[in-house]
């Protein structure tokens, strides 16, 4: 039976790991390659790097980090942040990423996802959907770290991305990100129920029960979290043990 996945996410800026509340007040918390090795040893099911380097001149640090990580960790690695061109995807895959997540570029040009899926294969294209609940049950896509509204309905967009060949959707609730209030389960579920591709729940994890809820109530097949793992609130092992206790199918060996 397929197991549910626990995915730690490392926010990387200029080659260093950072993670903050609502994308401000960034706190430096280490070397990404060392962090990746720790997560590998702890039995994380996958690893995600989100590059939040603003300037393109510092982008090359990312390829170096990805390459060093891929040499040390034999687990699936997804890299996102600033992916705008086919060339960006090619470089990340060549550096050793297994999947690349596309965010703003997918909003600006949905056909970019289609072209990328055709060129590199559906399985390595993740579309990262950042949404806010603008009124009860209505979810809108936001870009630029949650600052820019787009007027695009998140569920409609998610369906289109799946049709365009996205192999997986990473659904982040921007109003929850960094708050520890739990995933926006209505958002996760609305999208997961609307598409046939796997959905990763993201944004707002504060407790281990939130991870369980992401799958049980959000209908995601993977849960992503950053801060709770990163600052040692919980280990991957504790998260998985808790999820097993709640009756979910998890992989416990590594």
């Amino acid at each position, binding site marked *: 039976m397929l197991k549910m996945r626990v995915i730690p996410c490392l926010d990387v800026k200029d080659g260093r790991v950072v993670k903050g509340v609502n994308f401000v007040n960034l706190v430096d918390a280490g070397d990404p390659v060392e962090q990746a090795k720790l997560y590998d040893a702890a039995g994380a099911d996958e690893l995600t790097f989100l590059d939040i380097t603003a300037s393109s001149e510092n982008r090359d640090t990312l390829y170096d980090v990805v390459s060093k990580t891929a040499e040390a960790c034999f687990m*699936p690695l997804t890299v996102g942040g600033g992916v705008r061109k086919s060339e960006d995807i090619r470089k990340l895959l060549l550096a050793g990423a297994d999947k690349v997540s596309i965010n703003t570029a997918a909003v600006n040009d949905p056909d970019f996802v289609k072209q990328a899926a055709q060129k590199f294969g559906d399985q390595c294209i993740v579309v990262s959907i950042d949404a806010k609940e603008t009124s009860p049950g209505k979810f809108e896509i936001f870009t630029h770290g949650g600052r820019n509204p787009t007027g695009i309905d998140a569920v409609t967009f998610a369906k289109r991305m799946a049709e365009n060949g996205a192999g997986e959707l990473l659904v982040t609730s921007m109003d929850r990100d960094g708050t520890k209030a739990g995933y926006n389960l209505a958002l996760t579920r609305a999208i997961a129920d609307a598409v046939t591709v796997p959905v990763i729940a993201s944004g707002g994890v504060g407790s281990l029960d939130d991870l369980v809820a992401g799958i049980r109530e959000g209908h995601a097949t993977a849960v992503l979290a950053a801060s709770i793992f990163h600052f040692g609130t919980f280990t991957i092992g504790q998260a998985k043990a808790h999820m097993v206790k709640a009756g979910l199918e998890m992989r416990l060996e590594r």
Partner: protein
Amino acid sequence: MTVAVIDYGAGNLKSAAKALSHAAKATGEDVIVTADPDVIARADRIVLPGVGAFAECKRGLEAVPGVVAAMSEAVLDKGRPFLGICVGMQLMATVGVEYGEHPGLDWIKGKVVKLTPSDPALKIPQMGWNDLRLRQPQHPIFGGLATGAHGYFVHSYHYLLDRPEDLLADVDYGGPVAAAIGRDNLVGVQFHPEKSQAVGLALLGNFLRWNP
């Protein structure tokens, strides 16, 4: 001793080569990423990685002159151990039906068709860790592994074997799905050993030590 990882533009080439090199630290093989037919024909072992669509991969393989012939010479004539990974495994089929019907290498009789799990709630692609049920646990590539070990899967199509005796392991995904297949000096795995942490590295090490 050399292991040729066939270079035909497949997206996960680097991952597969890195993991093999890591596993080869214990066995001492040289892992060579190559599209050179001479190197392939002379290699002691052949690994064919692959991700993406069946037809696209087949086209990529055939686009490099002499590669298919060199692989066939090494694998079918000289009996060198062969490992196909994901679409690299699927390419051993008689035919694949992803985006139209396309002939495969026809090394292990069967057809590659879309996953149709009995439970409609199951997602396509199958993405993540699934526990292997070893159907031929004595096979040397499973040394040190047992039923219940997990492999990392990413696929929307699966291999329907003509001959049940070619099945080495399967997983349950709304019905049985071939996870490892093989005959004689050929093996193929639907999952990604290069991404399957300790289980994957063990399997790659077993392949490097395998003398069929």
